[in-house]
């Protein structure tokens, strides 16, 4: 294929990466950052071009703002409530709607009450350009599955690239190393928000700071940093 030289390479807006006139009968799926202009696929975001065989292309980049896409788990903050929707901010270009009945066993009689500023772990159900995204607090089969309000803990913002790194499998070294020694809860939203909760505030602070700092470190450096932090924690407790 003619685009081999661009896959996994840095591409800049304006680059033409695929020539459709040379591939007549193939279906290609385009993800974020790519746009079709008549016969050519051109880049609209700076980042790395990625290919998932056989035919999915997208541009991977890390920003502070989030582009809503379906089936993403995100952390939203309630900004308003209407009779049939909660208005939730998910760091995207438009606020998102969370229907009042989109909870497990939700009926008109047991509508949850969220005050303004409540933090929710939700799933994006619809994300069409130009429309407000729609959210849900259940998974695809209707079960609650950890979605819903997050109580206590501490929420901080990070870039979308860091949230993707925290969610990948095998698990990222920071979470693995911390998980072996201390117990804590973490919720990662693909929109660049992370929530951490633990029994004592010092644990929460250590985990949160470590995650924030790990963005620019390599795997080995992350492990070294975690070991140092854990040593400090053991000395002080």
């Amino acid at each position, binding site marked *: 294929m003619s685009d081999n030289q661009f896959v996994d390479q840095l591409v800049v807006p304006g680059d033409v990466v695929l020539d459709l006139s040379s591939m007549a009968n193939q279906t290609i799926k385009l993800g974020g950052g790519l746009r079709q202009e008549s016969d*050519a696929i051109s880049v609209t975001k700076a980042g790395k071009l990625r290919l998932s065989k056989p035919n999915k292309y997208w541009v991977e980049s890390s920003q502070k703002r989030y582009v809503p896409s379906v089936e993403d788990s995100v952390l939203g903050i309630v900004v308003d409530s209407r009779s049939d929707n909660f208005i939730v901010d998910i760091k995207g270009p438009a606020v998102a709607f969370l229907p009042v009945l989109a909870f497990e066993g939700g009926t008109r009689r047991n509508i949850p009450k969220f005050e303004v500023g409540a933090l929710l772990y939700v799933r994006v159900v619809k994300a069409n350009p130009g429309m407000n995204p729609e959210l849900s607090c259940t998974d695809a089969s209707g079960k609650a599955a950890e979605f819903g309000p997050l109580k206590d803990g501490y929420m901080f913002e990070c870039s979308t690239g860091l949230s993707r790194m925290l969610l990948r499998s095998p698990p990222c070294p920071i979470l693995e190393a911390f998980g072996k020694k201390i117990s804590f809860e973490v919720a990662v939203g693909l929109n660049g928000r992370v929530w951490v909760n633990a029994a004592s505030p010092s644990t929460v602070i250590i985990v949160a700071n470590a995650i924030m700092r790990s963005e620019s470190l390599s795997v080995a450096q992350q492990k070294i940093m975690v070991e140092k932090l854990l040593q400090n924690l053991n000395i002080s407790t």
Partner: protein
Amino acid sequence: MEIDRIDGRTPNQLRPLTCSRNVLNRAHGSSSWSQGDTKVLAAVYGPKAGTKKNENPEKTCIEVIWKPKTGQTGKSEREYEMILKRTLQSICILTVNPNTTTLVIIQVVNDDGAVSFKVAICCGLAESGYVILDPAKLEEQKMKAFPYLVFPNSVLSVLPEGSPKVEGELMENGIITSVTQGAMAVDNYFHCLERGRAANEKMSAFLRRSLQPQLPG
């Protein structure tokens, strides 16, 4: 026409370029760009929901604020803002996020000539590289006339015949914005265009290199 420049540069030579991204904590995107002693800081916020009253809700509204190094904002700042806004509107694909507002703030940190358009904006929207002819402040004051020219980024293309063509002309040879001050002959203007285009290639290569160190993996 060979001129001896004060700092010893040849007529075609640009000053050293530096660019760093993500310099501001709170801004959604930011970068600092310097060419010799001229330095500019740019911040981008958005896209945020909602547009202003008179703007088209089918498109993204781009607002530009230009802050000079000293003094109050006056007519020349408004002019820069308008030029930059028009340039960005013609570059960005405005229909991607309709009914949103993107705010661009330019702060001039140090002005040693050629300060306009010395902006490299990195954020989620579609942007391309900018270039201008590069006079230092003293040279600017002496010059009879100078144009500010904005060219499209040179693209890496897979198409066998090269870049897409618009009306028979290569799109790379097009020009996005041209603002001129002073009086010059038509031949001189075309001469400036050619020199600018040649410098554009170097700027584009620099832009690509500066975007290179991304997150590992």
